[in-house]
């Protein structure tokens, strides 16, 4: 009986999926007028075109390398993430915050037995941790120049904490993480509010006049990335602690 039911569901699922696939195929080969989803869009039509040319504010300006332009970073993706669409990114941080909060809220708090780590891990853990912290730090400091940024940096830093946890070394405690998380989160908005009072607009980059490509350029971008990195690191570390702290 049960098998029949699951067979039935399998068949239904296959039917649904094949129909959807057929529909997408039909849409993609549609020959009607207008823009089709198979067309490759002309660069001029995308908003990204203005991001690349760095002329969102001033339509006619053209960008020359290593000169002052719109106060964004050399890495255009970073520009989009932390400047043009900074608000999305802050919300994304909040999403992570909510889900980790929910995670801590609903996870059953059982007592678990934990094996003692091996001596090798215990001895080598600090070295690994320092290396990871360095890589993480590099990532968020250079996030506006090269691929990387706050989120990967936070993930890497949290891995350092994870190794500490695995090695049985108490690196940070729960309360500190909470404080770091909250302080980082609030500071992001605090900077936003500061820019509201300085420039009259939320989340406006109020440190201007840098040359693109320099280490200290992009205004607030490295600051935001740093805060995001700490926040993400604290949140992800929280997950590890949720699993391990109770033991």
């Amino acid at each position, binding site marked *: 009986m049960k098998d029949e039911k699951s067979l039935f*569901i399998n068949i*239904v*699922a296959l039917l*649904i999926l094949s*129909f*959807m696939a057929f*529909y997408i195929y039909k849409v993609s080969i549609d020959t009607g007028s207008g823009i089709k989803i198979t067309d490759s869009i002309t660069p001029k039509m995308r908003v990204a075109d203005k991001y690349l040319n760095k002329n969102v504010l001033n339509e006619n300006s053209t960008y020359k390398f290593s000169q002052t332009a719109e106060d964004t970073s050399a890495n255009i993706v970073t520009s989009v993430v932390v400047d043009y669409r900074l608000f999305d990114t802050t919300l994304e941080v909040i999403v992570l915050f909510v889900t980790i909060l929910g995670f801590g809220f609903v996870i059953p708090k059982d007592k678990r037995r934990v094996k003692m780590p091996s001596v090798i891990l215990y001895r080598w853990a600090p070295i690994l941790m320092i290396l990871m912290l360095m890589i993480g730090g590099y990532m968020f400091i250079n996030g506006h120049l090269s691929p990387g940024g706050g989120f990967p940096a936070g993930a890497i830093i949290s891995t350092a904490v994870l190794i500490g946890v695995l090695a049985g070394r108490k690196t940070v405690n729960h309360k500190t993480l909470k404080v770091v998380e909250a302080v980082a989160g609030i500071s992001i908005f605090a900077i936003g509010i500061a820019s509201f009072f300085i420039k009259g607009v939320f989340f406006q980059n109020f440190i201007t006049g840098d040359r693109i490509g320099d280490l200290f350029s992009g205004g607030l971008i490295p600051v935001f990335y740093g805060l995001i990195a700490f926040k993400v690191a604290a949140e992800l570390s929280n997950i590890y602690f949720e699993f391990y702290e109770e033991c």
Partner: protein
Amino acid sequence: MIELLLVPLITTLVLAFFIRYKRITWTLFLAANGFVLYKLYSIYGIWNLSYKVDTAYKILGAELTLGVSNNPIGWYFAFFSALITLLISLFSIGFNKNSRSNVSVIWMLIIFSNLGIFFAQDWVTFFMMWELMGWTSFFAITNGKDKALDGAKYYLALSLFGAALMLIAISVLAQYTGTFQIFASAYGLLQIINSSTKLGIGILLLFLTTFLIKSAIFPFYMWPQKVYSEGPEDYITFMSSVMIKYGIYPMAIFIVPVVGSADLPMILNTGNVLQYTIGYLGAISAILGTILAIFQTDMKKLFAYSSVANMGYILLGFSSMTIVGFEGSLFHVVNHMILKAAIFLTLAAVVFRTGESEMHKLGGLVYRMPLTFMTFLLGIIAAAGIPPLNGFGSKWMIIQALMSKRMVVFAIAMIFASTGAFMYLFRALASIFLGQLPDRYKDVKEVPPTMAIPMFIMMVIMLLTGVVPGVVMKPLTSALKAVGYNVEVASWTTLEGSLKNSVIDLKIVFYMFVAGVIISALMYFFGNKSEKVPQNDNYTAGEYPEEWGVDADRFNYSYAFYQPFKEMFEPLLESVSIDGFFASIGRNFEFLSSTIQGLFKRGEGAVLLFSIGVLLLILGGLII
């Protein structure tokens, strides 16, 4: 004259405030009804009632105006309703002394809605008041009692259904005619019928169904017995005598004029399709109501079916589409109002004193409640249509109208139903008031004066309208004249039929009746006296049926009063049971409900259903 509507509304709020103080609420209730009656009396002949509310609410591209206006036929209904309501409310003061619930608040709201219905100028106002009447009646019927819930639910579902149909009808009508005004849309509807007969008949049938539901005509004849058997007795009196007529009023002002003047396909050269539909529905109701009433053991159910039969007569009068039939129907509306109120007041009095409504458990109450008996006696004489009481004149007019249009089948149905009425009316009389008094009711007393006075007034009114029909016919004919019908104002004591030389003077009839009464009184006083024996001696031959494990009541002569007739009509009744049909609808809905609950209980297939939904959207985009 807007205070006519405002006073009931304000009284409702005041009553709600004093709901815990019975004496205050019922006195206020009486006063408010008195005021309404006085106001209605004062606008007789002037008909100056007009009030408009402009709303900013836009519908069909125009701002909606709600209004009440002068409407003589509405006045006719409203005035006599108010009269009866005033008497019932006087009765209620005594009746509700010991009851726990207080129905007066919601009842006052119903009176407000009723006045609104009678004076509504446009369909929207009419609909609003109509719906208000539906749900307020629900609360008035249940009145806090769980056993009344089933009947009330049945009534509520039917009236909501009817209101839904009416809303559709109003909207379609407004779409085609561009107006919500009742009289203007009647002319518009005639034009619709001329251009597209199907649509016109459809709209008319939607309206008709709504009104039939409220008046308990054939397919919807079940609700009175369900509702009347459990509701609070004084409110039920109001409902059975006054409220059941609210379906008749819109028929009189809208359906009858439209059907009468519309150019519809004819049948047999005497009437059109809808005319015959109305007639057959009326005939079936009259016959079915009579047959079913014969077999009831509960007195309230019996008179519920009697009401169905009487509604059938009124519809038969309409179906003739002659002015005499129309007058007869409207006359019968008031006659039935009066006599049904009288009968139900006596039933309420019986229930008040004995707490029992099963007829075979009662009996012999004539010895303890003579005034109640007298009222009941006059009421059933009137209901049977025997002169000189008031049921006679209207029935006579309706039969005359039917005969003059050669609608013989309907006339026969009417005569059959009137004759059948004797059977159930006599049964009720014999079972409740005559026969032997059960021991448990030895200490029953006559009702207190506040309840006796309205019953006495009822008797007077019944006799008055029976002997001097002009008290109703004069206002009626002048109202019809004011609306524009070609009628003459009736005289005080004579009625005119539609056949040749068919004028009847009720004075002469009354004298003959008085002579008959004197003769029978002489026979009673000089004849042999009856002997009293204990009740059980009569039908258990001295045995004690309880010893065999049987209830003694079952052997009462009035338990299976008309067994042979019942066996005769059983197959017919089973084949037309609408109750089973409605019950099956209810069951199907409940089954569906369980299925849906099962679907939502687990929620495992949520994503599957989600994808099916996506699929439906895709399919819809491609196929439809």
